[in-house]
């Protein structure tokens, strides 16, 4: 890759917080460091991954509103987790976490476990229990 070919396709994915450091060849054939603000194929791949996640989150949000699953399921998807990963964070067996996805079981959970969930999801116990996040991405 030549220096002038280093892509600068900023799609806002780096939120202005960083730039990719690349190595490219200058006019004299010597390798130099060049910063890149992004690259189209990579941007598209990342957007694809996030769209996939957003779809799942929205789908689960609907199911919580319909009373089919507990808010734990929603926040699990929102944090890109699955039952196995969530169980590791909670330090609980997977079968228990699985039960907590049922609205009936969730309502009876004691404060200590709710606090653990809230901490894992970086929200408050109140937010977890009242599920006051309708429509928010």
């Amino acid at each position: 890759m030549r220096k002038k070919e280093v892509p600068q396709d900023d799609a806002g994915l780096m939120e202005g917080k960083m730039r990719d450091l690349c190595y490219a060849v200058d006019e004299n054939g010597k390798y130099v460091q060049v910063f890149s603000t992004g690259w189209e194929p990579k941007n598209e791949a990342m957007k694809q991954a996030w769209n996939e996640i957003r779809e799942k989150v929205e789908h689960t949000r609907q199911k919580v509103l319909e009373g089919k699953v507990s808010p734990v399921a929603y926040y699990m998807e929102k944090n890109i987790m699955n039952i196995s990963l969530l169980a590791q964070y909670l330090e609980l067996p997977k079968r228990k976490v699985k039960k907590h996805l049922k609205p009936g079981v969730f309502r009876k959970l004691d404060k200590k476990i709710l606090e653990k969930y809230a901490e894992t999801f970086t929200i408050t116990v109140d937010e977890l229990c009242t599920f006051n996040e309708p429509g928010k991405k």
Partner: protein
Amino acid sequence: MVKQQENNIPFVHRPAAHCENGVTSNLLNFYGIDLSEPMIFGIGSGLFFSYMPFIKLNYLPVISFRPLPGWIFKRVTKSLKIEISRKKFVNPKNAMDALDENLKRGIPTGCLVGVFHLTYFPKPYRFHFNAHNIIVFGRENGDYTISDPIMENPEKLSYHDLKRVRYAKGTYPPIGRMYYVKKASPTYDLDRAIVKGIKKTCQDMLNIPLPMFGVKGIRYLAKRMRKWPARLGPKKASLYLGQVIRMLEEIGTGGAGFRFIYAAFLQEAAGVLGKEWLNEVSKEMTEAGDRWRQFAIMSGRIFKNRANSKETYEDAADILVDIANREERIYKRLRTISLEE
């Protein structure tokens, strides 16, 4: 020396393309061993390829362009005869205490962390990826000062947030892993380290007797990719292809990017060893990198525009086969390197 404010070590932060290269390069630089990122990458044999369809990450097959986390640091320090220490801790508090103790003694310390809870990272980059490397080099008003090679400037993390990322869960959990230099001698044999690093890379890319690794792995991916549309259907196939591109270009990995770093290394090595032919190989490696870029561009078009694309998975796989052939020639030529001549 002037007394430090709290525990701030006079540490120079330099950004890098790849986190482990950057951490290693910056840590050694602190001890007076000034080696560039490409030099670290080459000596540490950071170039690798593996395609493991049977291991899944978020339901998608794993492709990796690097050896296991920690290997670059391990190989470089071993090769340059630098004494290091690597530790992991079952108890998070002990891990943080050990880190504080190091900072008090003025030792910048590398940590393996997960990026999901890394607060200073841009949100779209925060997946559950646990093989990121940072250096902690100070503590100010309770916050830790962090040299993260991916960031342009030093960052800060609270005690709680640092502990959290050091104990991220999931695939390859960091378990509080930390590492640092114990003793570095200012004299080292760079020539020997370069030759050793090149030979190791050739070994990894040519001689592992399994189809998933090295040049064979690239061909294996090409072969599987041709079958994706029929076997998986258009939607899943496009997700698989998207995953390849993310693995190729996202932080901590890198297909084309790694080829360019390696080409930069070969160029530098040509100068150090006085071997002009390495400059030619560097050019060939640059071309291989350009082909990886073309592969990414074409794949991007395919998965974005899956219905009416003239280009197919077959075309993308053809590029991979061409890359495998080119790289095979490169490593076969490189493996003949020796200190004599």
